């Protein structure tokens, strides 16, 4: 997030696109509620009807995968009416003319044809966003999990820059992070192309710095993403996989394809709390300590790095992940020993991460945490990014044309399928489905289907529906609801016995970010069995 949760409450307008906030980030929804009740205007755009849509000033349901068109349409109307922030654009951005040339084609009428959102609503959205500022844009995986994920994100940035909403209080481009420490995992260099703090592995000076600090020669060749690794497992370039606290067998696209890939490995080591679907097929399973059983830090969506404190001893012989990594490393001939525990590891990391974490320490963090960038020990942290211009210099507009998702419904596969989360469960369900109170809320998987489609296919509530895509087939009990538009289905991703990734494609991903298009697949459905 460029801005902070507190800051959302001072927004004049909140535009939530591709986020089911009350279910997936409930305590951020609280901030939206507060802003709304204070008088901020709320716009919600989502192919499904969400709870947040109920309280919005304007709620639109655009066709799956049509985000670029929708945002371009809004920007077209903003420029058409002169609502864009000309001073801000002149002073702090570049590339406006090129973008405006592309936007010229995206009249509300044409965007209505692509998105299914009435032109009048597109015009109204544009007006609210542009004239009720500062406007905070919020998004989640509804924007990113597309073949055009990067285009979608750039379009969100475009509209924010267009109205002067980047670097101002109450504005910003605010991706809501789905996992407790996905921000931290990225910040810590858990990516194939960067060390900590996004220092590139392709930069010789950076490689030299880390090489010196770690006492080993390091590769300057960027590595593979998850998506690349799966392909590499299939063709034998990857022979061993070490998976820590993830369940790719359920979280990655195309179950069958992935199963083949994992089967070809010589070695699969899985470090986990539970015998997850992935751990079951591992060669070695290492039991890890849970959040309550160790010390350390997490970094949240607003870049706030906060302490967790050990509350109890780990169960059985489980060890904290850091202790396991130390043991593996030592056994590999590189002794890793941190008698000072996580704090000592943090200090080593901070010293190597000058721009963002260098000024942080456990003592400074307290219970409130610190928001990066925090470059020095006297720096208070940064609640709002880019207040004095963007990091790269002028904010860059990107001229982006709309493209269809990789798969559109056709005669053979006439339904749109989208996937996501429901409020009581989390990701692949390994933690939530064994929690009594969460399991009680939702015990089984389901597929949401529109009443019109259900009626035509004579599907009643709870009937088992067979869903088939070009990748495979699975079954799930029907939940009939007008929250999905006709011709659309929604499958939650939490349920291993109804695996949504049996249907999703491993070939459809964003060319740059390599994020799979989980949000759009084409499927056909049939009633499998009455309830």
């Amino acid at each position, binding site marked *: 997030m460029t801005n902070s949760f507190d800051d959302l409450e001072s927004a004049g307008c909140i535009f939530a696109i591709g986020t089911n906030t*009350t*279910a997936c980030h*409930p*305590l951020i*929804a*609280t901030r939206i*509620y*507060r802003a*709304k*009740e*204070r*008088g901020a205007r709320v716009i919600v755009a989502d192919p499904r009807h969400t*709870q947040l849509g*109920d*309280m919005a000033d304007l709620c639109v349901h655009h066709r799956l995968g049509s985000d670029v068109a929708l945002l371009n349409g809004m920007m077209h109307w903003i420029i058409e009416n002169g609502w864009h922030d000309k001073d801000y654009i002149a002073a702090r951005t570049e590339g406006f003319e090129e973008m405006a040339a592309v936007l010229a084609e995206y009249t509300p009428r044409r965007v209505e044809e692509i998105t299914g959102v009435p032109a009048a609503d597109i015009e109204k959205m544009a007006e609210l966003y542009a004239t009720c500022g500062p406007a905070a844009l919020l998004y989640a995986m509804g924007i990113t999990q597309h073949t055009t994920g990067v285009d979608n994100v750039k379009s969100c940035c475009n509209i924010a820059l267009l109205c002067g909403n980047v670097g101002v209080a109450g504005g910003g481009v605010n991706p809501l992070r789905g996992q407790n420490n996905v921000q931290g995992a990225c910040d810590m260099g858990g990516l194939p192309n960067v060390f900590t703090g996004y220092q590139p592995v392709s930069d010789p000076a950076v490689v030299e710095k880390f090489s010196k600090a770690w006492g080993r020669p390091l590769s300057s060749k960027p590595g593979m993403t998850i998506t690349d690794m799966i392909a590499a497992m299939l063709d034998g370039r990857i022979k061993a996989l070490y998976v820590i606290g993830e369940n790719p067998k359920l979280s990655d696209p195309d179950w069958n394809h992935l199963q083949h890939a994992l089967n070809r490995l010589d070695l699969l080591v899985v470090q986990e709390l539970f015998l997850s679907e992935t751990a079951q097929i591992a060669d070695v399973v290492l039991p890890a300590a849970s959040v309550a059983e160790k010390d350390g830090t997490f970094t949240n969506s607003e870049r706030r790095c906060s302490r967790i404190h050990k509350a109890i001893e780990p169960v059985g012989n489980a060890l904290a992940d850091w202790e396991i990594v130390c043991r593996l490393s030592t056994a590999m001939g590189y002794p890793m020993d941190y008698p000072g525990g996580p704090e000592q590891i943090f200090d080593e990391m901070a010293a190597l991460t000058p721009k963002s974490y260098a000024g942080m320490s456990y003592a400074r963090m*307290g*219970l*409130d945490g610190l928001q990066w960038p925090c470059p020095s020990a006297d720096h208070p942290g940064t609640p709002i990014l880019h207040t004095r211009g963007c990091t790269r210099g002028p904010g860059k507009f990107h001229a982006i044309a709309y493209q269809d998702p990789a798969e559109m419904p056709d005669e053979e596969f006439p339904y749109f399928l989208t996937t996501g989360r*429901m*409020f*009581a469960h989390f990701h692949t369900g390994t933690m939530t489905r064994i929690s009594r*109170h969460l399991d*009680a*809320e*939702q015990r089984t998987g*389901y597929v949401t289907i529109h009443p019109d489609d259900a009626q035509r296919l004579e599907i009643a509530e709870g009937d088992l529906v067979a869903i088939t895509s070009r990748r495979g087939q699975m079954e799930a009990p029907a*939940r009939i*609801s007008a929250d999905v538009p006709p011709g659309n289905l929604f499958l939650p991703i939490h349920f291993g016995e109804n695996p949504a990734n049996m249907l999703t494609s491993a070939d459809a991903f964003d060319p740059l970010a390599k994020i799979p298009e989980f949000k759009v697949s084409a499927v056909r459905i049939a009633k499998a069995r009455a309830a």
Partner: protein
Amino acid sequence: MTSIQQQVHTWLEEGRVDIFLAYRMVEGHPLPHAFTRERIDETDTLVTGPARYSLEKFATHIASRYPDAKIGMVARDCNQRALNVLQVWNQLKPGQVDTVPVNCCPSLLKPHADCSYLEPKPAGHVKLERGQDPNQSLAQADTLPRAERFDRWMYEFSKCIKCYGCRNICPVCFCKDCSLEHPDLIGTGHLPPDIPIFHLVRAVHMAGRCIDCGLCEDACPAEIPLRLLYRKVNAIVKDLFGYETGSGDTLPPFSILGDKPTMSPQPLLAVSQE
């Protein structure tokens, strides 16, 4: 040492209590803390506020594991009412909890106390137009026409994210099986939950039980004015049965727990007049 710190020190030292529940400042945050004889020096750090946690609920957790434990705690008026209710319902033995009363209501000595409700945050204009003002009195809330009252409550309930925080934080909610999780009463798996039944089932269970501490409203991510709702059910109990929740040592006039219902028929006239 403050006089309260001194008093707790003495109580622990003399064995008047085995464990004492209060607060301690941890890196600028008041957190609940259990003081014991083994770590008696910690009493130097004891504070009484300003945050409120459900100390009496923690006391029931101790009591269920150590039925003979002598428990002490700092108590505001709402804590004391909760302790009364918990004793009435056999969650704590009479006399098991010894309290050190602490300031709660505004006084000359302390113009405002630590209760969040003494410095109410004004509600935003959209909430005032569409929902229920958490700062209004019950009498004010009752002046609106019934249909409008219903619409306003439905607006508030529609924001519910079904966290069950109202129940979880509640010092007087202790049932092992909760009606809110009974799938035949309330559907599961969707947001908002079934409204208004989810909130009304809880409201009914709060009649003669709610001690008006406001912890539920503080804990509500949707900021539903739950305290106002439960005041209403308690007002009905008071009007119909003359029962003042949390004030005495008698069970409320009706009970859905135990071997037999204890509700005795009372003039329904009062309801129709309301």
